[in-house]
Structures are given as C-alpha cells and as structure tokens.
C-alpha cells in the first residue's frame, strides 16, 4: 500500500488507525463533503494492531481540538498526523479528555441541557475504555451506544 503512505499529501491531516467500521463516522466528524482539496478515504486496510483499519487524508486542513475530541470518542485508537510540505511535523494518538464540552448531547430529554439550547452540554468522562460519560447536569450515565455527537 505504498500509495497510501502518510506523506503522500503536501499539507494537511492524516487520521490513521481508525477502527475500520468507524471510518465513515470519522469522515462525518471532519465534514469531508465540504472539503475542496484532496480527500482520500480508505477502509478495510490491513493493520497489525486492529486487524482492519481505516485511514482518512485531507489536504489543506489541520484538524482542531474539538474534532480530535470527537474522533477520540468514536475511534479511540486513532492517530493524527499533521503534514507540512510532505513531512509529518506532528503525530499524536487521540485522547479522550476528562471533560467533554459542547460535542456530545446528553441523551436524557428531560435534562436541562437538552431543553435549553443556550446551555453548552458538559459530560464528565468516568471511564475511558469502554467509554462511560456522566452528564454534568442531570448525572445520567451514558455508554458508547448512547453517544450522539452535536
């Protein structure tokens, strides 16, 4: 798979080691349909650690913290490579933060954060693997199946 080497785009971001099944969800988080530069999406590529992995390359884009936090919830094994002039200038593994603000909706429809649009959702991460979140306001506990990204 030489042609999928991470340095194959001039500038941009490469998200590697995505659990293969989560690749399109990560693509959604990155809003790739609105990208105007090169976007490459690979699925079911062989991986030593994951068996099958996904990879996404986006030209001209440096992904931000909010996107990284969202990816961490969906694809906790993912790594991010920031590319400048065909070189990897930064590489890191996504990390689930201790507090998640404004990116996951509380699943409780009676929660004050679900009712009032001006309240930024806030969830405390009480377990990272498997993911378990607790709403700062109503204290309900959410598992990965309950996660709805904003």
């Amino acid at each position: 798979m030489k042609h999928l080497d991470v340095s194959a785009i001039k500038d941009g971001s490469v998200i590697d080691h995505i659990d293969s099944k989560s690749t399109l969800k990560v693509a959604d988080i990155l809003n790739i349909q609105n990208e105007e530069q090169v976007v490459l999406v690979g699925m079911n590529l062989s991986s030593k650690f994951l068996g099958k992995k996904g990879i996404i390359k986006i030209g001209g884009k440096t992904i931000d913290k909010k996107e990284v936090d969202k990816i961490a919830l969906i694809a906790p094994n993912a790594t991010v490579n920031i590319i400048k002039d065909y070189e990897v200038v930064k590489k890191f593994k996504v990390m689930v933060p201790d507090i998640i603000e404004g990116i996951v909706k509380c699943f409780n429809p009676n929660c004050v954060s679900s009712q009032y649009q001006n309240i930024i959702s806030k969830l405390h991460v009480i377990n990272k693997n498997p993911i378990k979140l607790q709403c700062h306001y109503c204290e309900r506990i959410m598992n990965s199946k309950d996660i709805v990204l904003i």
Partner: protein
Amino acid sequence: MGRFKQRDIISIRRFNKEDLLYILDLATQMEQKECTDLLKEKVLASLFFEPSTRTRLSFESAMKRLGGTVIGFAESGITSTVKGESLSDAVKIIEGYCDIIVLRHYMEGSAQLAADVVSVPVINAGDGANQHPTQTFLDLYTIRKTKGTLEGLTIGFLGDLKYGRTVHSLAYALSYFSAEMYFISPPSLRMPSDCTEELKDRKVKCHETDSLMGISKKLDVIYCTRIQKERFADPVEFEKVRGIYRLSKTTLEEAGIKDNLKVLHPLPRVDEMDESLDNTDYAVYFQQARNGIPIRKAILAAVLGVIE
C-alpha cells in the same frame, strides 16, 4: 471543621460517608438543643418552580427557627419565567437578594445549572426525577434514629422505582453502609438500569422482584413510594399500575414481617399505604416528615458556615 461551608448541595453522589454522618450528627444536636439566632440576618431564597408542601415548608420553618428570613415563591406562574426569563437569569438576579438558594425545578440538572452561575450556595430541593439530596439526609436520619444503626440493614424499596428520585438517592447513600436492597415494583416501574449498575459497581447486593411475598421476613425497613401520576406522559400507562400495592397492618402481618420492621414513605401518599398502618410501631413516616426540620437546620447552618 467547616467541611460544608459554602458548599452546594446538589446530589447525594457528591458526599462521602463521613459527610453524611457529619450532617446526621449535627441534626441530632439541632434536635437536642434550641438554637434560635444562628442564622440571624441571613436570607434564604426559596424558589419552588414545582409544587411542594413538606420540603418547602420545612426549609422555611428550619430557616425561621434559626432566626433567618425567607423570601421566594411557591409556584413558577408568579415569576418572570412566564415572561420567558431563563432559569440562569432568574437565579443570577435572585442571588443578589439572599445568602443561600433552595431550588426545586422540574428539569433534571437545573440545580447544577443554577450552582454554576451563582456564587451563593445552592441546595437542590428536587430536580425533576433526578436528585433530592436533603430528603435522603432525612431518610437516613430517620432510619438511624428508629433502627439504631445504618450499618448492614436489609431495605425493601417498594412502588415507583423508575421515577422515584428519593429511591435513587437513598439507595446510593445506603451503599456506604453495606445495605442489602430489594427493589419491589411492577416491571414498568423498575429501577433505571444505570442506578442498579452503579449499585452493583459499588458491591451492593441488590435484587429485583414484583412482590413482597417471600422476602418480607428479611426486611428491616420498607421504603414505600407513591406512583407519581405527574411523571407519566401516557395516562393509560398510569392506570395499569395505580393501586398495585397497598400496605396495611393486615397485609404486612399476613406476609410475615420482622417485629421491628419500620415503614418509611417520603409522602404524600395516595392509596399505597392504608391508614390502618398509621398507629402501629411500623409506621415512622410522620416522624420522618418531622425530621425534615433538624436535618434542614443542620444543612443550612453548616452550609452558611455558622457552625463547626
């Protein structure tokens, strides 16, 4: 010690065993000794966006018995929220008029929201189906007072365990005291799975059943709750479960119970407890309601930092 000074009382989950016992011990002192001017010149804002009798009146009475003053309202219809004012704005304004806020609101998480935006301490007097921590303190106080201990008891929770916030909070608090718990309800009103999972994570022995039969002899305490019509979106679902349990002196004694069983209820009751129970030694629910005063006195004094 000052461990409660300026502390918000939002959820029983925020307190450890020592915190719980600290408030219970303080309430015992409050009950034994008259203190009339501890909260002189302090103002409590009592903000009840949802109806309440016992909680509101016992908070107001506790404040006044300690020499403090109470402002506030007992229904949201007379506040600026009917003009569209947000809860955040309302509490930000009211904090300028008081030293402490007691809040009941129908939305879950509302007390935390209020605590996040004001600098005076906030006491949650019930946020939807979520938490009602001061009720839990008085439930613990009543159990300790009538059973002599909180350690190692077997407790049966009966009735609406799905929406009954007092049940969720009390079960959590009792997990500190090695309690064994029986959850007795119709299938549609079972304890939420996140509550039972949390209890199991805390190594609590819990069992679910739909009847007292076969377990009544094991129980030291029955914590009975009303099936709350107001929490049902569908009246048909309510009709299916209303009146499903009716505790009376006869039904309890026929089922076989411990002589020193105590029956608690956060009240109000509808038809789940027969009046024949009221004058028995089992019934401690009126005493439980009265215990709201020493507990709320203790909490107000501790949070306002006037007592060590």
